[in-house]
């Protein structure tokens, strides 16, 4: 699998995802500066976490209009796998590649802690190494992770199975008390209609090996390596 990581001014979890991709695939990803207008051929495009353009104006809004996003959009529409994590998720919604928006957390505070996610489906290139309904533990670290969409869109994405992950208890129950940001329906990640684009707020790239206290994020990258090899 050949991966390309897009670097925006203010990206900061680029290191984490580069390390994760390298550890799992054995190959270092290509690094693409945001002002590039051309993307090299890649099986996976990653928009990493961080604070692109300082998150000024609105999280992800300016990065969504940077030159490289035109090319990312073309590739996404052509079926190339695109993964947006945290700020990358915000950019994908701002760019219209994913439905919904990410608002400020319910309590208006940054939150960094481990949470549990329920894997909603395992028939995608991102999740085939997980078990159906598996509960995984990964961290969140964000200020604007409160997923929202209008009711029509919500009905559609729920109906089409576009929800990728939901916040849940360690036992797998949906419960508002473990929802770290107020996301509607506990949504932590969503797919596009074709399920080749995934955006999620939590950071599977920070739970790759046991030295990080947990390796539940690793199968996501293993899935990609296996399906996109």
């Amino acid at each position, binding site marked *: 699998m050949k991966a390309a990581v897009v670097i925006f*001014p*203010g990206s*900061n*979890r680029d*290191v*984490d995802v580069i*390390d*994760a991709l390298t550890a799992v695939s054995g190959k270092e990803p290509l690094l693409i500066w945001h002002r590039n207008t051309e993307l090299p051929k890649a099986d996976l495009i990653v928009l990493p*976490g*961080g*604070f692109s*353009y*300082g*998150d*000024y104006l609105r999280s992800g809004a300016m990065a969504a209009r940077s030159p490289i996003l035109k090319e990312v959009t073309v590739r996404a529409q052509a079926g190339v796998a695109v993964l947006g994590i945290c700020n990358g998720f915000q950019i994908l919604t701002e760019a219209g590649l994913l439905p919904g928006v990410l608002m400020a957390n319910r309590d208006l*505070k*940054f*939150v*960094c*802690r*481990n949470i*549990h996610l329920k894997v909603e489906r395992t028939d995608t290139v991102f999740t085939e190494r997980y078990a159906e309904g598996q509960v995984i*533990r990964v*961290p969140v*670290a964000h*200020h604007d992770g409160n997923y929202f969409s209008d009711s029509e869109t919500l009905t559609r994405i729920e109906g089409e199975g576009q929800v990728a992950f939901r916040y849940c208890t*360690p*036992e797998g129950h949906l419960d508002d008390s473990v929802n770290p940001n107020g996301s509607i329906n506990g949504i932590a990640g969503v797919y596009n209609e074709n399920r080749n684009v995934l955006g999620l707020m939590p*950071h599977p*790239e*920070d739970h*790759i090996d046991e*030295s*990080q*206290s947990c390796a539940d994020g690793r199968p996501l990258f293993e899935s990609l390596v296996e399906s996109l090899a």
Partner: protein
Amino acid sequence: MSDAEPIITAELIAEHGLSESEYRQAQDILGRDPNLTELGIFSVMWSEHCSYKSSKKWLKTLPTEAPWVICGPGENAGVVDIGDGQAAIFKMESHNHPSFIEPYQGAATGVGGILRDVFTMGARPIANLNCLRFGEPENSKTRHLVAGVVAGIGGYGNCIGVPTVGGECTFHESYNGNILVNAMTVGLADADRIFYSTAAGAGNPVVYVGSKTGRDGIHGATMASAEFDEAAEEKRPTVQVGDPFTEKLLLEACLELMDTDAIVAIQDMGAAGLTSSSFEMAGKGGMGVELNLDHVPQRETGMTPYEIMLSESQERMLMVLKQGREDEARRIFEKWELDFAVVGHLTESGRMVVTMHGAVAADLPIAPLANASPEYDRPWTAASTPNEIHAADIPVPNGTELPEVSVALEKLLSSPDLASKRWVWDQYDHLVMGRTVQRPGGDAAVVRLPGTDKALALTADCTPRYCAAFPRSGGAQAVAETWRNLTAVGARPLGITDCMNFGSPERPEIMGQFVECIEGMREACLALDYPVVSGNVSFYNETNGAAIQPTPAIGGVGVIDSIDAMATIALKADGNDLVLIGECNGHLGASLYLREIAGISEGAPPPVDLEIERRNGDFVRKQIMEGRFVSCHDVSDGGLLVAIAEMALASATPRGTMLGAHLHLDTDIPLHALAFGEDQGRYIVEIDPVGTEDLLAAAAAKDIPTRRLGRCGSEALTINGEQTISLSVLRRAHEGWLPNYMAG
């Protein structure tokens, strides 16, 4: 400017914080009266904050050398060799005064400033820590200050993408009018690629990079060199505004330029901005500088030379490049969309000549300002010896006069200083970069070094109530506690940075606290082979004559050779033995038990026997490195029972189950004194029972006292089969205080 040059009056001199004798010294240096810009430059260069004029004499007594020290105090940060061609670069700095006035921006720019100090030297920052002191929770300002400071630290560190992995946060009425915000950054560099601030090479260009200069922060250094009164809030305009996004760009651009060999010297523009950075670089190299302020990127129109020279606008750097390398450097900064301007060049003159609009705005000799600032030997008085308090003097807890031990434990764990600070660190991204292997809440944070099994252990500590009770013990204890925290995770301690927070040095009793804390620190550094490599002094932390408790915050850094042999505090398995290493004397003086349970803030702090500290610590570290302990925790605030409870609470699984212990505490010492005494040099270890006898024998062979404490098991702590404390109750108390307080 020149047409409106004001007359230098006595009032103007006083407003600039210069004494009459300092002004006369300035006149002597110049052979004439300074103009306003020059007066401003003297004012900031000779401010306490920049010149260390009251502290220098004593700071010089601290040990700063060891075979592994690459660079001690005097540069932007200290540098230690961590092996394999790598170096750790670190420093802690105060941002107290601005944070009280404007907590979010004050704290945020404190983080920004210390990050720049570290990456200026060629290091990529890999971790932040902080030491926070707030007033008593009941004070009407405290909640607002905690919220603002924590959000500000998080806002800056989270955005720039450096994990905030550890620190301290405590409360005391002496900080009601002067909170402390001490920020520490640790960076990683190649040992042969360290960048320094000594200017060299006449004709070499002086280059300004980063943000534009505005009118913010003018005289911040002078503000930090005076005490507060009711009018403190009026100083709000002198607090700078931070932009972590620009700092992230500046970090990446500087590191990219540092990959070339174009840089001769580099210095961040921190306190006293362009003035101190240019004077310090030139002063160290014995060079002169011609600066043309017309070329300085400016955010506002009509700025005067005085304002440009004294602005403390953030996210700026000054560097001396090799001649002819300007374009190469410019391309890098333009890629990162940052200002880049050649603002002058080095000369052989030894003078700072500042021009603007074709006129000379200042012309000053550099050496007398940079290297020969006033130095004071301020009068000081020794602290009186506090009275010893014995366990027998304190009523035995019987449930009436004083609560039973189990009840006291719950109260202690939910007291402001011991309560969980999860509410704080949840707001700090402590995981970004993906290398945090011990998160906040343990003895020391541990951050793995990329591509290796090695790691750095990091901690920041101080016990101000000990320093207030007896400064010499308190100073030694602060150093020893950091050393112990590093040891408890299995790290070899390498060195410290100190952030010395005190009241006004012009009062002999405060100066005495400073002198004696330093003396204690010196003894500890020597005994533990643990030098000071960087630091900062913040005096004048007082309001209307009421000073803070003396607070020499210490940041410690150690190295772990393999994270496989690292210890954590969480209890691991049913049936394991718990053993105390070190001696119990039941010392209750100046303890948290005394303050929080008995309501007495008195007594001598626990003595710090540095020889024993070293012996016990070296023993524990060796055992950890050999993989003999299942867990380890040092005993500090709150004593033995609090430490055991912390180990049990840390064992919580994601589903919330916890592992407790059946404790058998010998009552050779009264139970409350054994449970809550704060004797130093102690560790609790969890060990597989098959190894216990060997451990006890190995300790005995080194004359190290040990004590069997009991065995892991159940979901509670039971004491001598009599008292049982539910861990879920303890957890609720421990985790609940801060969020409930903040919601209040």
